[in-house]
Structures are given as structure tokens and as C-alpha cells.
């Protein structure tokens, strides 16, 4: 790339062609305050806070949109620039309701959560020199997860840009003009009734208090929170997150990497950003044992362990089945497998074990996220991608919007992705496979096709996916498998969901159930209908299966359990716990380690197994 030589505040700076003055100045260590500018979004030049003086230009220029040029002389901090910035801030603060003390994002200089307020401090706004505008604007609380208060909006357009450029859902836009301008949701709908997918990207980039979470409000300022960077294992994508935690409560979850060049643009979905904050289920707080009259009685952990030991001895190994969620870290999955094999139990499986069993006999060419972005035909089969794997949905929309890719949706349920499709085929659940051959010629006629298989119920249904897999194999089309849970892939590679484990399922009498948390493939009803004589449950939350259980032992939730996950892209990642578990609450590996001691099975080591992932 061509070098450009310029002077910033008298210092010689070398930049590359195409860079803006702002980028060159920041690289050279000069600070220019910005407001509507955001690292991950296209510059907008709307707020005028980043103006600089350029020699030879009669007016001030916005540094975020002006490209550098050879021989340019830029001044970022002259009196004229400072005066202009203060004037701009005064105009912004005068319009609408910027009385900070009413706002939850407000704070002192060091610990405010509000970028607008921070900039106002910086330019030393100490009063409103112009009469304040007091028109009332709407407040939209219809979204299940966020509030939009137009009275605090400064019309910087960050939300509009993130919704269109990164999420590619284009729900937000501007409407009306001048001081009456409003951020519009679709064509003037409320967020709750619109095409909004509640991903919260707009909330993350809002520099004022105009879009804020329904769950974080007034809980804590970020400066008072512990900051934990990890990722989200709820689905197989594994988006990077930053978690703000205070007093063992999550205050806010944000996506990481909203900077230029990052693929996902720091997105999260509704489940990832708000799910843990919306948690309303009750925890299992103490071990429970069923007495001779069939009632639950509270027990100590040791009593529960003893009962489990008795049960494991009372049944022969071929009468015992182990079932586990692939939401658990690989360490737990490996330990469960090792423990089962020590006591001779062969029937061990995850709830989504069928997913990989169905795939195992096919030679598939695995599609990557880039393949989705570069595809010209995308066949999206099954499920609702907006609910289950929303971030991949954004790649599909980007391909459709930016490159004119053709999207075909074949699914039994309606989805907010449907409006982007050229063709939507509504079929009965389970019969998605019957349409595979209709698309053979179409795939042949396109140069870059990808088949995206979505949802636990589709992937675990052999009849529904086999025709697609055969087609993919035959035409050598890329396939993307959207795995249901964070560790589905690891579970398969560790052999937790082995071939044909279900074959002897019916004769089992004792079920040992490990629910780290409840993944999308888990169904209490299907466990109940198998009619186990005895169920031992190790779980974090109270649910329908607890009523059928005979021994209940409280477990850690995924938020509290450290461990390794291997997500869809095949990279093993370490999950750092976001919350601390209560004393005495165990992960499956801790519970089984205690059981192994009680049964004198000797030490079980899983380090080598996990390291291989």
C-alpha cells in the first residue's frame, strides 16, 4: 500500500493511503474525541465532534471521514477546534433530555457508562448556554429485552449502522427530519412488533442512554463490576463475551470484537446477551432422597452419595444407563465416560448424540463462515436460525444483502430470516429431506452453494437430513452443521455419544442423569416415557424430571463450571466461570470423583483425553 506523509500537530506522521485523519492521528498517539464514530462501523461524520483544522482548508474538517493526503498539515487541538467541539457538544446537550441525573448510565468522570457524558466532561460543559428543548419523544418498551428512549437519543446513527452493516437485519433507520428526526423501527413500528431480532447490538453501541437493557438497569455501574472475558457455550457458535459481574450477579453481557475486520462484529444473540440475565428457574439447593413413602426428604451430600453407591451396586452394569447434556465441559464429559467404563456401564449418551451419529457415514466438505459470506446459493434447512444460531443468520443476510446471494429456506416453522429468502418452502417437521432432489439442478447451475443444516430436531432426524447429506456428498457442496450445544462436537469426539448406544435403551432400569444445564435436545417427556425404575439426577435447576427422580444432587450451572469446549469451528476453548457456585455444589466430575473414592475405584485421570481435543 502506498505511503502518505503528513504532519499532525507539527509531528511527521507516515500513514497509508485510504486512511482517515482520525486513524492516522490515533496511530500516531494523538487523541481526537469522537461520538458517532465507532471502530467497527463505517464512518458517518454526523456529530462533528472530531473536527480538526487542516492547513489550506477554510473550514474545519471531520477527521473520521477525511482521508489523509500527502503534505497535509493537520492540527487536532487548536483553540478554534476546541471552541468548535464545545459548541457542538452544547448543541447536542441542548436538544432533548440530557439531564444526566435521571439516567442510569450517568456517573462521575472516571466511572460513567455514558460516552456522551464523558465527552461533555472532556470539553468542560458546565451549564447549558442555550435554552433547553423540552419536547417529549416516545419511549419504546415493547421489546422483551431493551428499552428505547428517544428523549436521550443524539441521532448519531451507530444503532442504524450496526443493524445494517453487522447484523444485516436493517430493522433500524432514520425517519423525519431535523430536530424531529427519530430512529425508526421498520416503517414506524414498535420494537416488539417489528423485524427486530433482539440481538442487542444497537444497545451495545449506543453512546448515550437511549437504548438500554431491561435487565441491567440500575444494578451497577461497570466500574464497580468484575470484568470476565470468556465465551458463550449456549449454542455451537461460541461467541466471545465480556461479562460484568457484581456480588455474583451478572449485570451485563457484551459481545467482544466490535472492531474493523472482525468476522462476527462482536454480535451476540438474544439468548447469549440476555439469557443468563433472564434466568427465572429455581435452583436445586440441597440433596434430596425419596423415602419409603415416596416423599422427598432433604439429605446431606454424604447420604446422597451412599444411596448412589448402593444403587450402582444394586443393578448390574447392563441395567444402568448414563445420559448427559453436551452443554457440559469436556472435562465432565470425559470423566463421566471414564467413570462409566470403570463400573462396566456401556450405555452412555448425550441428548443430541444422534446428530453426529447421523453424519458419521458421510464424507462431507465442511463449510466455514466465510463460505456462507461468499455463497451465491444458500439452502437453509430446518429450525429457526434466528432463535438458535442468530449470528450465522447475520452471515446469511450479509450474503443476501451485499452480494445478492439467493436464499432458500426449507423449514417447518416461521422465522424472521424468511423475509430475506427468495423462496420459502413450508414443510411438515421431519419431511425436510423430501425436497432435496428438487434443488439438485439448481445447485449444479450455481458456482458457490452451501447447505446449512439447522436445529437439534432436524439434525437428529435421520430421514430428514440424509437426502441432503447424500446430495452434498454427490455434488461436493459445502455443508454447515449448526451444532445444537457448545460441546456437541467434543462429546462426539470423546465418544460420549457412541454408535448405536440406543439399541438396548428399553431394558435399562437405572438412569444416571447429568444436566449441566438444559440443552435444546433435552426433553423430560422422552426420558419419562422410557420408564426407568430409578433415576439419579445431578442438575442445577428444578424441572419436570425432578419429580420422577429418586436421588437428586445439586449441580453447578454452566455459568459456574470451568472447562473446555470445542465449538463448531473446531477450536477448543477454555470457559472461565462467570459466577461462583455455592459452597458444596459440585460439577459432574467432582461428584463422580467423590463417588469413585466411595466405591474405591482408584483415581481417574482425564487430562490426556481432554488435551487431545
Amino acid at each position: 500500500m502506498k505511503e502518505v506523509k503528513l504532519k499532525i500537530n507539527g509531528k511527521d506522521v507516515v500513514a497509508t493511503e485510504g486512511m482517515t485523519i482520525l486513524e492516522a492521528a490515533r496511530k500516531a498517539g494523538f487523541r481526537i474525541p469522537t461520538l458517532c464514530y465507532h471502530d467497527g462501523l463505517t464512518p458517518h461524520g454526523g456529530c462533528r465532534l472530531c473536527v480538526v483544522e487542516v492547513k489550506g482548508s477554510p473550514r474545519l474538517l471531520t477527521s473520521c471521514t477525511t482521508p489523509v493526503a500527502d503534505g497535509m498539515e493537520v492540527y487536532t487541538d487548536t483553540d478554534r477546534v476546541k471552541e468548535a467541539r464545545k459548541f457542538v457538544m452544547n448543541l447536542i446537550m441542548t436538544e432533548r433530555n440530557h439531564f444526566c441525573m435521571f439516567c442510569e448510565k450517568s456517573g462521575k468522570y472516571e466511572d460513567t457508562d455514558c460516552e456522551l457524558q464523558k465527552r461533555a466532561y472532556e470539553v468542560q460543559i458546565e451549564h447549558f448556554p442555550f435554552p433547553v428543548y423540552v419536547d417529549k419523544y416516545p419511549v419504546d418498551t415493547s421489546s422483551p429485552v431493551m428499552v428505547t428512549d428517544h428523549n436521550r437519543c443524539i441521532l448519531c446513527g451507530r444503532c442504524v449502522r450496526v443493524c445494517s452493516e453487522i447484523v444485516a437485519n436493517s430493522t433500524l433507520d432514520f425517519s423525519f427530519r431535523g430536530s424531529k428526526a427519530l430512529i425508526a423501527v421498520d416503517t414506524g413500528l414498535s420494537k416488539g412488533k417489528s423485524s427486530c431480532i433482539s440481538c442487542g447490538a444497537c444497545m451495545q453501541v449506543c453512546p448515550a442512554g437511549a437504548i438500554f437493557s431491561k435487565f441491567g438497569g440500575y444494578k451497577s455501574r461497570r466500574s464497580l463490576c468484575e470484568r470476565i472475558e470468556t465465551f458463550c457455550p449456549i449454542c455451537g457458535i461460541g461467541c466471545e463475551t465480556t461479562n460484568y459481574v457484581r456480588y455474583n450477579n451478572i449485570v451485563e453481557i457484551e459481545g467482544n470484537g466490535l472492531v474493523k475486520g472482525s468476522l462476527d462484529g462482536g454480535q451476540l444473540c438474544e439468548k447469549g446477551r440476555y439469557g443468563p440475565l433472564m434466568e427465572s428457574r429455581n435452583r436445586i439447593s440441597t440433596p434430596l432422597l425419596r423415602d419409603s413413602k415416596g416423599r422427598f426428604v432433604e439429605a446431606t451430600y454424604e447420604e446422597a452419595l451412599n444411596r448412589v453407591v448402593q444403587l450402582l451396586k444394586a443393578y448390574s452394569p447392563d441395567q444402568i444407563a448414563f445420559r448427559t447434556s453436551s452443554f457440559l465441559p469436556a472435562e465432565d464429559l470425559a470423566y463421566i465416560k471414564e467413570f462409566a467404563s470403570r463400573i462396566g456401564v456401556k450405555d452412555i449418551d448425550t441428548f443430541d448424540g444422534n446428530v453426529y451419529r447421523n453424519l458419521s457415514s458421510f464424507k462431507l466438505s465442511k463449510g466455514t463462515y466465510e463460505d456462507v459470506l461468499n455463497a451465491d446459493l444458500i439452502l437453509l434447512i430446518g429450525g429457526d436460525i434466528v432463535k438458535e444460531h442468530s449470528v450465522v443468520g447475520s452471515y446469511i443476510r450479509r450474503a443476501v444483502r451485499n452480494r445478492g446471494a439467493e436464499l432458500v429456506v426449507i423449514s417447518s416453522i416461521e422465522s424472521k430470516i424468511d423475509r430475506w429468502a427468495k423462496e420459502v418452502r413450508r414443510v411438515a417437521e421431519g419431511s425436510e429431506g423430501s425436497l432435496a432432489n428438487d434443488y439438485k439442478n439448481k445447485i449444479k447451475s450455481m458456482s458457490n452453494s452451501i447447505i446449512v443444516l439447522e436445529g437439534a430436531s432436524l439434525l437428529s432426524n435421520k430421514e430428514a437430513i440424509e437426502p441432503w447429506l447424500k446430495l452434498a456428498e454427490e455434488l461436493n457442496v459445502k455443508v454447515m452443521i449448526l451444532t445444537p450445544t457448545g460441546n456437541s462436537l467434543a462429546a462426539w469426539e470423546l465418544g460420549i455419544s457412541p454408535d448405536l448406544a440406543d439399541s438396548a435403551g428399553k431394558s435399562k432400569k437405572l438412569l444416571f442423569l447429568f444436566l449441566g444445564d438444559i440443552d435444546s435436545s433435552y426433553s423430560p417427556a422422552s426420558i419419562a416415557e422410557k420408564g426407568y425404575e430409578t433415576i439419579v439426577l445431578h442438575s442445577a435447576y428444578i424441572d419436570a424430571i425432578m419429580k420422577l427422580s429418586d436421588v437428586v444432587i445439586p449441580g453447578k450451572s454452566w455459568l459456574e463450571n470451568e472447562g473446555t469446549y470445542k465449538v463448531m469451528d473446531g477450536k477448543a476453548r477454555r470457559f472461565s466461570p462467570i459466577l461462583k457456585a455455592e459452597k458444596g455444589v459440585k460439577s459432574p466430575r467432582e461428584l463422580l470423583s467423590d463417588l469413585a473414592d466411595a466405591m474405591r475405584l482408584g483415581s481417574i485421570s482425564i487430562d490426556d483425553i481432554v488435551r487431545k481435543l
Partner: protein
Amino acid sequence: MAKVRVATTWLECCSGCHMSMLDLDEKLVELASKIEFDASPITDIKEFHPVDVGIVEGAVGNEEQLEVLKKIRENSKILVALGDCACFGGIPAMRNFFKKEEVLKRVYVETESTVNPEKVIPHEDVPKLFPSVKAIDQFVKVDVYVPGCPPDPKAIEYALRELLEGKIPVLPPELLSYE
């Protein structure tokens, strides 16, 4: 050296800024050797006399407050707006987003703690309410602004010390606060 004479008053506010002034704690003792308070809620002197510095807490929302503001302005060489209400309008300005009649009805008739079966809205012997609450610089000239709800004692101390040195204080960003 003669002491600097200071008057303070509070208008539409919660008195929190005066409390913040008292939070200067032991520094008050030191300042007391250089400052003498005239009319002020602290001294309980009601009549204003000519002073060097007048400090106003609170916004203007009714006739009486405007009277008091004008009096302290006339008597002060330098007028300080102390706190968000005086500087911006603050919490009292929340009522600007409603009509005056709505506000009076809500306060005197509808609030959960009110017992007012005749639904009387006071109109005699009380100052007339303005249609909206405004910062004090909408009525009189203000020389120094110390925002904050309340301002940090450090900000108040900074402003007073600058004034004692004969300078017009401009608060640095880290001493500014709007909350």
C-alpha cells in the same frame, strides 16, 4: 486582610449542595479564617447585604425564587451557580416535560400520600408557579458554574480556593459531575 464576605441561598432544590459544602469538613475551619458568611441558611441571616461572592443552589420555578435570585445577584460581585439545579435546571426540571396543571394536580391531589378530599390546589399565600423550571442563568448573569448532584466537596473547595486567589474558576473535567 479583610475576610471575603459570602452569601448563600437555596431556591428550588433539596439543600444537598449546601450539605456537600459542609462535607468540606476540617477544611471549613481553614476556610473560615478567610471567609465570613453573611445571609445564608447556615447562618440563618435572612436579609441580603452586599457581599463579594453569592452562592446559589437550586433552580427557579416560582415568583418568590426569582425575587430571591435577583436580590442575591444585586448584592454579589461574583455569583456562583452551585449544583445541577442551578446550572442546568436539574431534578426540578423534570416537571418541564409536563403541563403546569398536570404537575399541580399530581402533587396536591393524586399522590398516594395526599389526603385532599376537596381537591384544593393551593392558590393563595403561595408564590405563583412558573410554567417551567429554569436554570438561574436564564434570569441573571452567572459568573461561575459548579455542577454536580451534588457537586463533590473537592469541586466546591477548588472553586472557593480559586475565588480566594482572585481567579474565576473553571472546573477541570475530573471535578465535573452531572450526577
